[in-house]
């Protein structure tokens, strides 16, 4: 099967000398197109750092990330931003909603930034699945944590990206909704041949994935 995401010798160091922190210390990873991958590991193991590297949000201290035919290191920041909003959907732990935009505007924001029109039928389908249809005019501040997380998920899916990177997307959701969301992610992933990489603490959720990668002290633990 074709690998859509390839990381080779990925390293991220912070600090110098005695205080040197090896957040990632040589990660080699290949993720196949259309697969649902879960990354698990303890706090501080380097999960979030790895995800940020894979999405091109952070620049590695060493090694490389290739998405499809694009080597992320070869893009300047402008090109990287454009690449991200076209190819990758992010779901963040802290939602990252734009406080001054309402729910609908938040969902279609990355698409608008790209100068495209949203596939409204599809977006509404996602909205309904996430139970947000009554909240489209609300501002993020007036939503509960779970609702905000669902908006973030809807936003990540709205642009039909080829890769969805999710950092603890179910952390703030009750287990029923959490299961539904992951089910949804899996479903859309299959339907649009999306590749999903998700960080989670929840073993139940991790078990729904096609593949589980465990990370410890900045390295992948061989299964």
């Amino acid at each position, binding site marked *: 099967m074709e690998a859509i995401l390839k990381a080779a010798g990925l390293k991220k160091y912070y600090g110098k000398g005695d205080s040197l922190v090896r957040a990632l210390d040589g990660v080699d990873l290949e993720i196949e197109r259309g697969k649902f991958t879960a990354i698990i590991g303890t706090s501080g193991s380097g999960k979030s750092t790895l995800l940020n590297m894979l999405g091109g949000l*952070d620049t590695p201290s060493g090694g490389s990330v290739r998405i499809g035919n694009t080597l992320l290191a070869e893009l300047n920041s*402008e090109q990287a*931003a454009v690449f991200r*909003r076209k190819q990758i959907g*992010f779901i963040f732990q802290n939602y*990252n909603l734009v406080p001054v935009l309402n729910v*609908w*505007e938040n969902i279609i924001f990355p698409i608008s930034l790209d100068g495209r029109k949203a596939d409204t*039928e599809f977006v509404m389908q996602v*909205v309904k699945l996430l139970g947000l249809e009554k909240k489209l005019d609300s501002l993020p501040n007036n939503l509960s944590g779970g609702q905000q997380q669902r908006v973030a998920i809807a936003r990540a899916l709205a642009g039909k990206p080829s890769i969805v990177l999710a950092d603890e997307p179910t952390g703030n959701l009750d287990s029923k909704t959490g299961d539904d969301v992951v089910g949804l992610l899996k479903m859309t992933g299959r339907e649009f041949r999306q590749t999903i990489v998700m960080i989670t603490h929840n073993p139940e959720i991790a078990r729904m994935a096609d593949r589980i990668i465990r990370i410890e002290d900045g390295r992948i633990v061989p299964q």
Partner: protein
Amino acid sequence: MENKAGAKTKKDAGYRNPVKLLSARMFRQNRGRNMVAAVAITMTTLMFTALFTLIQSMNENLVEMTFRQTGYDAQVSFKKIDPEQVRRLDAHPDVKETGESIVLGLAENEGLAGYQVEIRWGSESYARHSFSYPDTGRMPENADEVALDSITLRRLGIPAKTGERVTLEWRKDLTEETAEYIRADFTLCGIWEGNESGYAGMAWVGREYADRMTGGVYNTEGRILGQYMAQVSLYRDGNIENTMDLILKDTGLEGLEYGINLAYASEMGAAAQEMTLPAYFGMALVCLAGYLIIYNIFQISITADVRFYGQLKTLGMTARQLKKLVYGQAGRLCAIGIPAGLAAGWFLGLVLVPAFTGILGGGGRVSPHPVIFAGSSVFAGITVFVSCLRPARLAGRVSPVEALRRSDADGRMRKTKRGRGSASLSAISAMAWANLWRNKKRTVTAVVSLTLGFVLLSGFYAKNVSFDMEKYLGELTVADFTLEDATSADYIHGYDPQGTTLGDGLAGRLESMDGVEDAGHLYSHQFTWQMDAQTVENLKGYYTQEVLDRWGRYEADGPGMFREAVDKREAEAVVFGMDGIPLEAVTQPEYLLDGSFDAEAFAGGGYVLAVGPAVGEREEGSALPAPSVGSTIELEGNRYTVMAVVFPLHPVDGGASEQGAGDSMELHFILPSDVFCRLWPENTLRKLYVNVEDGYLGAVQEWLDGYMRDVDGSLPLTSRETMAGQYEAETRSAAVTGNAVSIVIAMVGVLNFINSMVTAILSRRREFAVIQSVGMTKKQLCGMLVYEGLFYAAITLAVSYPLSAAAVGIVVRAMVEGGFATFRFTLFPLAVCTPVLVAFAVLVPFFCFKDLEKRSIVERLRME
């Protein structure tokens, strides 16, 4: 619900410009911050408007003044031209308008001494462009009609009413003493307001009268009767010489002599530029002050929002879009701040206009030209844009991941280790000090901004108070009242040494008035003097090529006159006889260029004072263009020893040369008045000086006003008080603008200071909640914030005092040096501002703390 969702899908499939939408929403979100920024932009615009108003009105006034001095506002004038040639010029497509005039002669009525009134026929256009078109009545149409200005009428003692009888005396040939006087009677048919700064007035007569006098003969060599003149107005002001040469070529009139109006000459532009240079300097300062605050506001808000910008970046916003977002905010702020600033500037203009109208006695005016508003908007806009450059770049460069880690710091914060002791006062103050440097840029910018305001304020104030009116007036007048013979300053006909203006009656009555403390007299006599060898040597030594070049620049004939004098060893000697005020004034130690003055010996009669050049400091032993001190010279047969060389004080030896004297180089000498009167008893008083006790100034002025009204309207009178008032009127606008700008700059500094403190506190709301939650008391927190404010103020003052002292002590001292100023070191404005600043430094953190207190610790902990 389906419906609503359905409607939504149709309406908002995507918004056309997400950056614009976000910009608008963010703008609404940050009301307080935007208000501060808008006020800053308003103030910046206001300052630009004030300065542009000043520059424009200065330029306009200068041009207007030159128009009035040159006497016309057309671009080109012809002193001698044939009527036929005028018609050819008039037909040329590049010529807008032509005006013609025929000169008959000069009115020589007794009351007109010292004021030139030209009897002429003129076309309507010529009169209009010469500022001499009747505003009451009309131009003459018949042979017995005349139109005159108000000054001429006042001097002739004729009421300014059409229909009055006017008699003008004139000669057809001015060069011949024997030419017969013509006394012509006219009916007054038109009047206009006379122009005090113009050198001459017009007496318009009808064409019929003019033709009868000239007999149709024009431009005879050496005669002014029948001189046919023309003025040509062009469509464009630029490149007049080329245009004119082209026109002359097209009309076949090559080589015809013409003059370009001085007001259009490029030298005028240079002069205007020199006058407005300080205003341009002010503009640079305004730019800087505006930059400091707008930059700080944007820098602070972007630092505060850096997390938000990082988020946007993770969502795929490009650096360019982020920059657009920042500029969008700036644009919105400009849309509010600039119009508000223009409106405020317009109001300030209303305040400044009365100040301007004092200039140039009626010639001054101020027009709210659209260019002022356009220029101010553009400059304010540029300032805002430049101020945003760095913050926008910062926003664009935010790394999406780093953004998540920022707090109230500019990125290079060093962690300081603090002791474990209890939070004593010193610990609290240490914490406050450390907090100050968490955002170095903000602190430094606010301090610089405030310091700039303080330094400017101190400088302006010191410069204004150092102006010494006595010193200024000392160069213009040496007495409370100076009366002169009507011909004393008549540069056209020359001074009449037997003039009758200051008859014994007037002088006697004035000197015997109550309150008169002191008086002085000045007589003068002029003759051609055969220079001695030493004087010629002295002249040669002083007038080096460099000095001659400088002289030639403002008096083209000067160097020629010098060479002729040296070659022929001949110069015009003007001997002044003086006593009292003028003699005391000119022999003050600071005015002695060489030698020393012994009043008793001088009164003895064997000595003479020579008048030197208007030079300041002089190198020891360098030559002076006068006879050497100690040498003996012969003046009309009498021998005198030169006692000293004195400075040429204008109120003493200034004035016109004697009638009939040629254009030669002049050397001035001073003798005691009794010696003078024995030698030239027929010469009458030229100048009369009177000093009056302060309490009697009004009474004497009133008496003189009455004398001028009832007896002699042409009496030239200089009054010290009038001159002081005139000076104040002339400089009021510049003073008002300077003060207004430095006060606004100081206000901008204070605003910057307050904004920096407020944002520093508000952005740390959560942090304060955290330290409070682990045990800091309200009192300690409030104390810490007040300490921060006090440190802010202390740093500002610590920088402002030495800088202001340097600005005043070095820059202002150098600026006022040599001018009409007595330097006095003062930091008065700073002393006034110090308690105000300290009060702000305590009150602002205190009220911020009160605001914080409105929300519970838990509430604040939950805040992002």
